[in-house]
């Protein structure tokens, strides 16, 4: 049978089988499973048919809980149904999983296993989510590689139909789900052959139908529940045998053989590792390597973990074994052992009792944890586990892959141990997210995978920052099967696609002796050496690397590709890596270029061809001098004056050495210091804004809109300029109140992302040259050093006394210190200006509950976090609970603050005799203004002093809660995916509660963080993932829904359209003593345009009437006024003028022009109708009475 070889990732392999063998697919985005749902949705949109020649129904739900409910329903009514999920999503499915299994329903869920959030969230892979479902009654089937994922997805589907036990098919998130590998794709015939029509009919016959009605899902009592529950046992007993049979049938069809437990190694091993998942591939490679050296080591791969078949396990278990280590990729604190370990111990014991294992079999069984949150698991670690088994004093429970200096559980690993075979190409590429390195590498894998007999593997490591993110690509090519599911640490080809990385990373560390080092360098072969930092020079010399340079940016510019260097760097790789004969490789590159760029027109194609030719012509080998030269060193990851924790821990994480940080360095409970982004100078802007004081009108718009808080204004005493650096700019302050003082706008050159929103917002034009504004972008490198000095001097200038400022004016807000700075958000992010504004206004007294999403990632992802502190050490206190519960989480903050306040007041009253007038002063304080709050703080400080001298138990109790006597500002922050979809039920409950919380909805109109999936905030006519044909339904009007309560403060704002209205709304929302919802328009990278135009788009959104600005203040109703105030004018431009500036809308005119036209028309009608309704509602009461 001819086999269709493809190079795909495991998510695609799983989706391929799942899509073809199901009819209903309910989906919800969650990393790292999202792409399975996206592919299913895409295929359905393209009309791709399943094995029954029909297009599956693919439907997005509002949460994983919703998806599992829909799946349960669809199964009950007899459709073959599936879903894809991971981590918290899987946890949300557990209630339905119990039901589905309890009802013996055939179904498969495909899970890219991901860490469940505990002390921290992690998007990466381990088995903690899967292990949390052990008690649901689902079969758990583990795949270890991309090939297996495709194969097991089908085997699971076949088996569930026969066993009636539902299957959770899982594989390691990221390591397997996102690994691109060459594998054989299942054919439709193979899939048809595996799925029995009779069993599908039986599934349908079990469905709910009024034509043969029955009831399923009864409530039962103590008399019968137990017996009825035990009734399922035969199905579970039969299940392993049926799976084994399905595997055998599969082998007969495809030639690929699997068993429930697969042993790898010599016939009579003494040491055995048992595990499942991608780690088994690593162990496989290591066992092969050691066995070749006659080491008596073996591996038992667990495929079907549940139902755990003791019999099959006993059969597969080599009886010669004296030492067993069972490795779990999960942690179950407090358990006698991790789950697989516990099962193996039980199975050995039971196997002996049953006589399947000889009674004399007495191995020592150790349990080890490895690989949590995708922690690297390498052959050296496997070897270390075998070594541990050899020790008489081996730890019964150990960890591998970390340095545990607290409980000393970790085993020693020899970093030099390697099993990588000779003759295999191992290439590591350092690039920027924006420079196309990853796509070029994906194309190289395709070229080699599809055009040659080589096996190919690619894995990509991304940065946790969204702007200027570094990508590291790990590629392997070779003739042998590739089991190496770990990062490359001994590369024979290392490429650095960005010269600026040299000062940050020593990339020669991953090179093996004699490897090739390719550098994209503005310096030619004769001059580059002195520009290379010493550690890299030494690495090149010590390892005798062959060093090549190319000026890819110069070539790109010459041939017209601007900054796209991907084709050039890809050509260099093929030219010097010798992975393929050079001419053949170049031909393939050109063919692939045609495939990728052909549609974009002849000239783009020609530019790329030229790029290939020029790359070959301008690639030079450097004659490496005999010794290191020059004084250039690498920049330290953080400055020397950073705090100790930042020096010891954060700096290592920044430098890419987080793996080396020992257990003791970390807090035990997930608590980290804030204010750390200021120490990470990422230096990612190619251009930064430069200020011209002579044009500036000092309006403060630039600093207000800056998403990264890198451009700031200060008014200060002129005398302070005496110590200013030479290039520090200043001018007279244009404030009546501050006459005689000086004013400066300063940019932090190493924190700026170069988004240019400040320049766009600048209204001050040179009268003689209207093209010139008070701010203009200029090349960063020449400005870097001087402006860094200026920035440090600027920071040393005192902040203006807040009491002297009018905080309701944008001009004055620029003088308020931002307590949210330098986040890792996308350059030009539309969300962060709102958060920064809130931090400026209320940062010293705010607690933030942050829903999972972009704002929790740029708000809380290590290594450094942006919430910071003022000079008094006060600042936002921030936490993230989950995605779905954020409103409730924040309401909990309020409940606690209110209770503590109430309790404090009670004690205060009781102690008032001891405290004199102070108690009364505190109890009656007016905290409606910042001055009032500061006065209360002073009183509370005084109170604490007094309490220390009062020897009563109440005094100590009051001291512990006295801070709650100062007003706190509770902010519940999240995106539209949370507020409109998964968290809406909670949000609704919280705003109905009447409690004083402030909810900020950062509305990007899609699930931005997971890559732009449709939410109920997505507008009609916009294309999003899961809405490839344009969203047919209108955006949910959350403002209107909240207004319907009449007791909720509601505002809809757009910073870029009307900053004054935004400020007003935020201040009113905070001042309102009940629940407030502020819905903020956030332009987003997922809208598909250069975010430098974000402010224009915000204006257009408002002017078109798409985003009417409004404030609804219930307090006004009490005064007899209309609570609803419309803050924007009637639509003045057609919707089309706004929407077609954005790819999310315009792409539909390319894909489905008729649909685009229809949806645009409907969307325009939505705008018209809604405006009329708002206008009607906003008529002042007296006018209404007259009309």
């Amino acid at each position, binding site marked *: 049978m001819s086999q269709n070889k493809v190079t795909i990732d495991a998510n695609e392999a799983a989706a391929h089988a799942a899509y073809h063998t199901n009819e209903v697919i309910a989906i919800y985005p969650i*990393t*790292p499973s*999202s*792409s399975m749902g*996206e592919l299913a*949705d*895409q295929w359905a*949109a*393209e009309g791709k048919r399943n094995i029954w020649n029909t297009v599956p129904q693919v439907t997005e739900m509002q949460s994983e809980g919703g998806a599992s409910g829909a799946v349960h329903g669809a199964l009950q009514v007899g459709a073959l149904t599936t879903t894809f999920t991971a981590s918290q999503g899987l946890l949300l499915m557990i209630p339905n999983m119990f039901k589905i299994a309890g009802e013996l329903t055939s179904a498969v869920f495909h899970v890219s296993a991901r860490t469940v959030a505990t002390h921290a969230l992690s*998007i990466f892979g381990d088995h903690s989510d899967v292990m949390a479902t052990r008690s649901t009654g689902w079969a758990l089937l583990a795949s270890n590689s991309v090939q297996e994922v495709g194969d097991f997805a089908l085997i699971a589907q076949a088996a569930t139909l026969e066993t009636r036990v539902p299957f959770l098919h899982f594989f390691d998130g*990221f390591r397997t789900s*996102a690994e691109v590998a060459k594998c054989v794709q299942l054919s439709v015939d193979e899939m048809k052959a595996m799925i029995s029509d009779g069993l599908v009919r039986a599934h349908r016959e079990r469905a709910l139908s009024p034509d043969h009605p029955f009831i399923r899902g009864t409530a039962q009592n103590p008399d019968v529940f137990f017996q009825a529950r035990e009734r399922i046992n035969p199905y579970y007993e039969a299940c392993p045998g049926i799976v084994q049979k399905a595997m055998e049938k599969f082998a007969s069809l495809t030639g690929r053989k699997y068993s429930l437990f697969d042993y790898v190694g010599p016939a009579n091993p003494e040491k055995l590792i048992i595990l499942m998942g991608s780690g088994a591939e690593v162990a496989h490679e290591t066992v092969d390597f050691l066995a070749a050296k006659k080491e008596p080591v073996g591996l038992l791969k667990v495929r079907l973990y549940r139902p755990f078949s003791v019999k099959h396990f006993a059969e597969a278990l080599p009886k010669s074994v004296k030492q067993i280590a069972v490795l779990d990729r999960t942690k179950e604190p407090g358990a006698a052992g991790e789950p697989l370990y516990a099962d193996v111990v039980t199975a050995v014991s039971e196997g002996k009792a049953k006589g399947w294992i000889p009674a004399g079999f007495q191995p020592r069984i150790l349990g080890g944890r490895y690989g949590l949150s995708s922690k690297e698991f390498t052959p050296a670690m496997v070897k270390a586990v075998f070594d541990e088994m050899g020790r008489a004093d081996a730890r019964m429970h150990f960890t591998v892959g970390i340095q545990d200096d607290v409980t000393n559980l970790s085993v020693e690993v020899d970093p030099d141990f390697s099993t990588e075979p000779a003759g295999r190409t191992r290439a590591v590429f350092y690039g*920027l*997210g*924006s420079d*196309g*390195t*990853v*796509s070029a590498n994906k194309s190289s894998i395709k070229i080699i995978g599809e055009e040659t007999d080589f096996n190919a593997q690619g894995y*990509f490591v*991304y*940065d*946790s920052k*969204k702007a200027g*993110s570094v*990508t590291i690509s790990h590629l392997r090519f070779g003739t042998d099967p590739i089991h190496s599911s770990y990062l490359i640490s001994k590369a024979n080809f290392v490429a650095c696609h960005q010269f600026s990385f040299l000062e940050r990373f020593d990339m020669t560390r991953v090179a093996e002796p004699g490897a090739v080092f390719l550098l994209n360098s503005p310096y030619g072969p004769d001059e580059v050496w002195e520009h290379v930092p010493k550690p890299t020079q030494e690495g090149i010399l010590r390892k005798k690397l062959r060093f090549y340079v190319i000026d890819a940016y110069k070539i790109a510019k010459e041939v017209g590709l601007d900054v796209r260097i991907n084709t050039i760097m890809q050509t260099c790789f093929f030219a010097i890596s010798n992975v393929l004969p050079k001419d053949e490789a170049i031909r393939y590159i050109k063919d692939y270029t045609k495939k990728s760029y052909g*549609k*974009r*027109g*002849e*000239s*783009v194609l*020609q530019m790329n061809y030229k790029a290939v030719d020029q790359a070959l012509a301008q690639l030079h080998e450097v004659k490496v001098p005999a010794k290191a030269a020059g004084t250039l060193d690498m920049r330290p990851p953080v400055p020397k004056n950073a705090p100790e924790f930042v020096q010891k821990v954060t700096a290592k994480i920044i430098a890419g050495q987080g793996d080396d940080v020992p257990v003791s360095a970390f807090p035990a409970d997930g608590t980290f210091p804030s204010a750390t982004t200021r120490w990470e100078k990422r230096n990612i802007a190619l251009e930064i804004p430069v200020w011209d004081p002579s044009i500036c009108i000092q309006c403060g718009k630039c600093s207000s809109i800056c998403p990264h808080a890198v451009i700031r204004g200060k008014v200060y005493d002129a005398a302070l300029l005496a110590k200013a650096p030479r290039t520090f700019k200043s001018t007279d302050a244009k404030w009546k109140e501050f006459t005689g003082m000086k004013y400066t706008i300063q940019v932090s050159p190493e924190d700026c992302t170069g988004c240019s929103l400040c320049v766009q917002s600048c209204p001050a*034009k040179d009268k003689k040259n*209207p093209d010139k504004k008070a701010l203009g972008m200029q090349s960063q490198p020449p400005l870097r050093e001087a402006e860094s000095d200026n920035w440090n001097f600027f920071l040393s200038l005192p902040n203006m006394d807040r009491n002297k400022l009018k905080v309701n004016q944008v001009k004055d807000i620029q003088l308020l210190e931002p307590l949210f700075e330098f986040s890792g958000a*996308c350059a030009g992010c539309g969300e962060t200006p709102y958060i920064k504004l809130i931090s400026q206004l209320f940062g010293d007294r705010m607690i933030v509950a942050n829903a999972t999403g972009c704002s929790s*990632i740029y708000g809380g992802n290590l290594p450094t976090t942006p919430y910071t502190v003022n000079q008094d050490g006060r600042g936002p206190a921030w936490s993230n609970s989950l995605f779905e519960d954020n409103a409730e989480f924040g309401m909990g903050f309020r409940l606690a603050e209110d209770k503590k306040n109430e309790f404090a007041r009670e004690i205060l009253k009781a102690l008032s005799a001891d405290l004199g007038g102070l108690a009364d002063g505190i109890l009656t304080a007016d905290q409606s203004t910042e001055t009032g709050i500061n006065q209360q703080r002073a009183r509370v400080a005084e109170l604490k002093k007094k309490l220390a001298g009062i020897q009563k138990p109440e005094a100590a109790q009051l001291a512990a809660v006295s801070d709650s006597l100062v007003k706190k500002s509770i902010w519940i922050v999240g995106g539209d995916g949370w507020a409109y979809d998964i968290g809406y039920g909670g949000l609704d409950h919280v705003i109905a509660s009447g409690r004083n919380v402030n909810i900020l909805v950062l509305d990007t109109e*899609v699930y*931005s*963080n*997971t*890559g*732009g999936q449709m939410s109920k905030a997505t507008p009609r006519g916009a*294309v*999003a*993932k899961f809405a*490839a044909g344009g969203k047919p339904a209108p955006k949910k009007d959350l403002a209107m829904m909240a207004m319907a309560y009449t007791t909720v403060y509601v505002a809809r704002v757009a910073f870029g359209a009307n900053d004054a209205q935004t400020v007003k709304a935020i201040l009113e929302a905070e001042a309102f003593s009940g629940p407030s919802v502020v819905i903020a328009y956030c332009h987003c*990278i*997922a809208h*598909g*345009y*250069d975010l430098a135009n974000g402010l224009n788009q915000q204006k257009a959104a408002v002017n078109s009437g798409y985003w009417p600005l409004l404030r609804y203040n219930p307090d006004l109703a009490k005064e007899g006024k209309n609570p609803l105030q419309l803050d924007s004018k009637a639509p003045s431009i057609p919707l089309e003028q706004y929407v077609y500036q954005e*790819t*999310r809308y*315009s*792409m539909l*005119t*390319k*894909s489905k*022009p008729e649909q685009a036209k229809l949806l645009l028309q409907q969307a325009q009608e939505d705008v018209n109708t809604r405006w009329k309704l708002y206008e009607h509602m906003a008529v002042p009461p007296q006018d209404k009475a007259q009309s």
Partner: protein
Amino acid sequence: MDLASLYMGFRLRNPLIAASSPLTGEMDSLRRLEDAGLSAVVLPSLFEEQIEIENNRLDENLLRGTESFAEALSYFPPLDLYRFGGEDYLDLIRKAKEALRIPVIGSLNGVSTGGWIHFAVEMQDAGADALELNVYFIPTDTAVLSGTVEQMTLKLVRDIQSRLRIPVAVKLSPYFTALPNMVRRLDQAGARAVVLFNRFYQPDLDLESMSVVPGLKLSTSDELRPRLRWISILYGQTDADLAVTGGVHTAGDIAKCILAGASAAMVASALLTGGPTRASVMLRELGEWMESKGFQSVGEMKGILSHRSISEPAAYERANYMKVLGSYS
């Protein structure tokens, strides 16, 4: 009454052609234009920039931010689902050819020879009966010589014409120093017709934002006059057919075009304001006027008020100018 006119080798049922406008970009209005009596349609101009730059921009926007962040390796459904700029244009030609009996003329707007001109062939293959090449170039560089602009235009026409079987018309700007010579050379380069004149967009200055705002106002009958002058000068001096575009609003305007020597009058603004049915009124009134003047056919009218009948056209022009100036005194 015989309203038929020969234009680019087509026997048109009358001389009124729908010029390139949003109305010719949609099947509904194309059908209505045919029903209203228009004798041919020029589809909206596909800009050189649209073909490649728009594709590039779309691609750039779709790729923006991709492969940078582990949770969001892309932000849109994949490219394969999308058709690139130009493809819908070809579709429009195909659909128009299927639905209409009158000639369908494709329109390309460009200034210089480049990779994009292969699109002319694709338009031909999609079924376009003819191609109108809209040469839209505003020289802003003081170093560019008038001869260079002319050569660039001629090369473009030659390059396109040599690739096509279908006839090519060239829509020109009024800003040529020696228009008759330019037209002759275009004729020699293979142009089957010359369309006078292109209406450039008319930028305005916004005093509030202190910026330039692009814009285009609909034409009025007043704009017809310079076109009539040049048609009447060119008539009989070139083998290329002549057509007027810009300022054709009434039956009288059509008649003037024919009398000056045009084979066709193209209309857009009048139809955009009055709807396609405006054309049927214009054609009916044209017939009525011809009848009142005793014309049996458009052929008889063509060029009878052109400069051909005048011995020294240049002198005639200057003399008339003096007369006109005098009339204001």
